[in-house]
């Protein structure tokens, strides 16, 4: 019955937002659309400064500062991909959610595991890639008690001979890439307040950028810049509170009026609520060397029960652009003021130049969690277009004049009564798992889910170090019955070129290669290669556990192109398996258990590296 009603609602939503200019040609078609590839002149290209030529290595999770996740190697092509075969495997001896990519630097592969965050160095020059050394940071065991959505780690970064990574108990560590000896270690987060760190750092301009996690624990979000050499704190910007804490000064020029004003980080919160108001930075950062601006998204305001925090709750669920050296904010855009559905806005930010008029305009492409694909001007944050890339009924659209997100009033949760059928659900139309952008096709390949939820708000009681949520949630498949999808999105014409329906939510990041292929994994363990232009599935491999890790492509010591991915189900979606949960409780794992009740039957926990290549 629920499906029929949601379908009906979908139709109404489409009709309702037909009037608004903001939601234009409407929903992505369900069947893959066949269309010829776009000529290069017509489509977007990654920002040149932020995407240097591919040297065959993979030194940071996003591949480059423009977050393209595109490898130029083209030895593996749609023609020969069917013969792709496994080269070697390696078990990381952990069974939690593995969200990180393997890093490859000049013949050595580095693996950073979820808690207890081991760092392996594998020698790719020797057959079977034996481990050269293992670095064990030994994070506090108690930090597992304050990690809301599985004790994951989203990746390490290599720069100038050192490997930088974060541990769950809030430390940032630099390790010498060759010897595996610790260079420096800085304690940033405090687990007693509920802070953990799960994000992959960004290393740029001689600094290491790290943010905290704990939006569900009532922490106060911040981003810190550490000096790359010594690990000492260069600057630290909070995401709530007075302007001096948020490093907002004369340079700050937000495009829209609603973001302008003094001390909005205090004025848009009830008294003291901003001290426990969330706004964490646990997602992806991008850096534009040209304008020396670092871009990052800010997490959800706490608690989920929005009645307890009237006001716009600045600066949560929005995008900041900051100067890399001083940390001063250049601009900010709030995607969902007074967020009511836990739609953190921390998704990846792809720097690109799109054809505009007769020239090209520097923009950022953002498949945001609230369900809209944002194209915004990189210099000012102005929203050029915001188009839903999946089924959305929680919002009526984005008003381009004021930049405001127009909520759907009858989906607004009220304390004391369950609001039903909110789409997209709390994890959003796409959660943290980043998409890939191929300069060949100009398309953004979005691995996302298709979930709706029932949401019941209640009073949340703040006790430091314990969850500060105040909501009961139950998630279930959205319209169409498929819980996930893999969509190729054309940012210029603002429409889906093709889309593959997946039964389970697609929680793995995407990889695009120069050979015209796109790789992604499914939560029940299939590692798939599809044609970048047509979306036809060309090759797939059944891994031992669900895949939520970032696949990478690198040139091995023998000059051949290798594809590597680590299979270890977990994260928020896979907590049912990695957290050994009891699926009889639909509200488990903040409601995700109800959506993936069948996952424990389809995959077990694991943590195995798989490396593929073409046979000789």
């Amino acid at each position: 019955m629920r499906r029929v009603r949601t379908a009906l609602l979908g139709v109404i939503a489409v009709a309702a937002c037909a009037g608004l200019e903001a939601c234009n040609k409407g929903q992505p078609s369900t069947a893959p659309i066949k269309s010829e590839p776009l000529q290069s002149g017509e489509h977007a290209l990654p920002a040149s400064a932020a995407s240097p030529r591919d040297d065959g290595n993979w030194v940071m999770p996003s591949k480059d500062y423009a977050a393209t996740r595109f490898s130029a190697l083209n030895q593996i092509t749609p023609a020969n991909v069917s013969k792709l075969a496994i080269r070697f495997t390696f078990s990381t001896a952990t069974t939690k959610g593995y969200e990180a990519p393997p890093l490859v630097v000049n013949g050595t592969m580095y693996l950073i595991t979820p808690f207890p965050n081991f760092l392996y160095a594998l020698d790719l020059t020797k057959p079977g890639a034996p481990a050269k050394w293992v670095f064990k940071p030994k994070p506090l065991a108690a930090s597992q008690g304050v990690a809301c959505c599985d004790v994951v780690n989203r990746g390490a970064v290599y720069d100038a001979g050192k490997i930088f990574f974060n541990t769950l108990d809030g430390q940032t560590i630099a390790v010498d890439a060759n010897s595996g000896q610790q260079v420096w270690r800085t304690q940033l987060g405090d687990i007693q307040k509920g802070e953990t760190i799960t994000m992959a750092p960004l290393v740029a301009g001689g600094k290491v950028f790290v943010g905290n996690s704990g939006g569900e624990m009532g922490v106060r979000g911040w981003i810190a810049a550490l000096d790359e050499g010594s690990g000492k704190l260069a600057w630290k910007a909070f995401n709530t509170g007075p302007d001096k804490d948020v490093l907002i000064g004369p340079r700050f020029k937000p495009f829209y009026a609603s973001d302008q004003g003094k001390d909005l980080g205090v004025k848009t919160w009830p008294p003291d609520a901003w001290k426990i108001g969330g706004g964490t930075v646990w997602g992806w950062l991008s850096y534009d060397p040209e304008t020396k601006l670092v871009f990052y998204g800010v997490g959800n305001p706490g608690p989920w029960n929005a009645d307890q925090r009237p006001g716009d709750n600045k600066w949560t669920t929005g995008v900041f652009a900051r100067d890399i050296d001083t940390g001063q904010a250049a601009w900010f855009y709030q995607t969902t003021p007074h967020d009511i559905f836990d739609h953190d806005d921390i998704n990846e930010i792809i720097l690109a130049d799109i054809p505009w008029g007769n020239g090209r305009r520097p923009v950022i492409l953002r498949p945001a969690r609230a369900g809209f694909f944002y194209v915004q001007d990189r210099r000012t944050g102005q929203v050029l277009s915001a188009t839903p890339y999946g089924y959305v009924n929680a919002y009526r659209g984005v008003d381009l004049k004021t930049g405001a997100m127009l909520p759907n009033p009858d989906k607004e949760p009220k304390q004391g009564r369950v609001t039903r059928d909110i789409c997209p659900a709390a994890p959003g139309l796409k959660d943290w798992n980043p998409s890939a952008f191929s300069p060949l096709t100009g398309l953004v390949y979005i691995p996302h889910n298709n979930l709706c939820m029932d949401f019941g708000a209640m009073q949340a009681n703040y006790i430091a170090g314990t969850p500060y949520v105040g909501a009961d949630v139950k998630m279930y498949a959205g319209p169409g019955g498929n819980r996930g999808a893999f969509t190729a999105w054309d940012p210029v014409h603002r429409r889906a070129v093709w889309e593959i329906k997946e039964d389970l939510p697609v929680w793995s990041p995407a990889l695009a290669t120069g050979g015209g292929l796109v790789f992604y994994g499914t939560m029940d363990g299939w590692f798939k290669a599809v044609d970048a232009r047509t979306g036809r599935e060309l090759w797939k491999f059944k891994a031992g556990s669900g895949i939520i890790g970032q696949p990478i492509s690198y040139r091995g010591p023998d000059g051949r192109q290798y594809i590597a991915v680590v299979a270890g189900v977990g994260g928020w979606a896979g907590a049912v398996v990695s957290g050994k949960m009891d699926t009889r409780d639909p509200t488990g794992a903040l409601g995700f258990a109800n959506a993936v009740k069948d996952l424990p039957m389809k995959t077990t926990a694991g943590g195995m590296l798989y490396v593929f290549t073409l046979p000789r």
Partner: protein
Amino acid sequence: MTELERVREEDKKLAAERRKIARDGPRLSGAKLEARLERTWKRPRGILGWLATVDHKEIGRRYIVTALIFLALGGALALLMRLQLARPDNDMIGASRFNELFTMHGSTMMFLFVVPVMEGVAVYIIPLMLGTRSTAFPRLNAFSYYMYLFGGLLLWGAFAFNIAPDIGWFAYTPLSGPQFSPGKRADIWAQMITFTEVSALAAAVVLVATILKTRAPGMTLARMPLFAWAMLVVAIMIIFAMPSVALASSMLISDRLVGTNFYNAYEHGDALLWQHLFWFFGHPEVYIIFLPATGFVSVITETFCRRPVFAYPVVVLALISTGILAFGLWVHHMFATGLPRVGYSFYTAASMTVAIPTALQIFCWLATMWDGRPRFQVPMLYVVGFIVTFVIGGLTGVIIASVPLDLQLHDTYFIVAHFHYVLIGGAVFPLLGILTYWYPKITGRMMSETLGKIGFWMMFLGFQLAFFPMHFSGLLGMPRRVYTYPAGLGLELPNLLSTVGAFVVAAAVLLFVINGVYSLYRGAIAPPNPWDAASLEWATSSPPPDYNFAHIPVVKSRTPLWDEKGELPVVTGLRADEKEILLTTVVAAAPDLREPVPYPSLWPFIASIAVGIVFITSIFSPWALTIGLIPCAIALTAWFWPKELKRNPEPVIS
């Protein structure tokens, strides 16, 4: 032998058979008839006989006695509550204990005393008043008493086991829901409701069938006594009101037992659903209590003013219109729940309108007194007390019918004063009057007049002392159901007066009971018609024999005993060797059918035990409904098992 001869042969055999039947009439009358009837209608001796009785008089007596016991128990709780409320910030009784007390007091008085006692009096008197030997469905009548008894035992048993309900007699959700009433307290209350409303429905069906079908020949609807009219309207109201609370309490039990979401606001259930269903039953319930009392007042006024009640048709129409209007004004209990105000003004108007029929009835009683020659014996005193007290209650009722006034007065002691005025003033005073009036009919002895008068004045003055100050504690801002109140709000004096008054009322009730018990043994032997009344129940001896009337009387006017000075005309021909009553047509009461009357049987008792077990065990497990239904089915099948049908040779009496 041709067909014709065979039929004629058969007729001859039938006529011979018919002649052999003993039948009351010229051939069999007087002492021989009464002995024969006595043998037919008496029930087996001993405990099993006691349990198997179907005699409406015995069941009526049990109803009245059980109800009076519950009145005493409920009254004792009231005294405890008044002791706790005598002084501000009193800690004599703890909060949760006090909540149990007022819940038990309210539930006992409303469900275990006042409705059953009215049904008990009706079940006892109506057959006698209508001139018939038994009620219709006598076994159902027995079943209804046992269900009532088990309901009372369940509630008071729980009180003994210290798991008494503490959620109020109205049990608003979500307080009575699974989260805020842990344990089985609220389930027991809800199951007591199931027991008492099954009992009330059964008794109502019995009364309707008896009133409509078994009246003495000639007693057309226009000649039926006003008490019978009152009970007819009440019975029909019960049939429409009780299912509403049955539905509400069953939904509460299923919410509490198997986690359905009828009243769970989160899952789009609604706390107000309970209030609507409960008060749709609740307001008719208070008229179910009041209308029998109007019947009592009509009977007493007629007898003691020595003339029929003035404007009989107006009183009957007033009864019927009160019965109908009562269903249209339940939302005046919910004026503070934030429903749309336009809707409220409709219910204000409805609540005002329902006062008109009652006002007319009061005028008619006063006119009867004006035109008659009133004798102020104890029952008549209670009628005067009724008029003085009830009209105050009625008028405060009109006051709180107005939305702006009710928003201030709702759930304060002003309301407690109002409903005690209309319930005690309106129902208990006439009840005490009618018990004194029909005491000689039930026991054959007169209650002492002096004790009665002292009792009346103690009751009347005690009542005013107890409940009039409550108007002021309400106006001074004292909410209902509080186990204590702070000093300094001016509530000290009214509460102290109420406590003293309560004890005076208790003494008056005690005096009435003493008078009742004393007169049982030492009361003067009652003459056949001690009050020189007009209705048929005084046409037989006191206490009446098992078969009530040797010959079924014929009625020619509204006041048969006054008009047929000498000998009541009778109709004969009912069998004496079989239990049989005469059914008459509904409107004209023309003789219609002979109805065999069921014999005493244990099955109603066994069926009520089986149903009782299902109800009680279904508090603890949903399987009780499935497994428990088997014994019920067996008991009911056995109960309705048809006796082998002897071909009845009786032609219809022409």
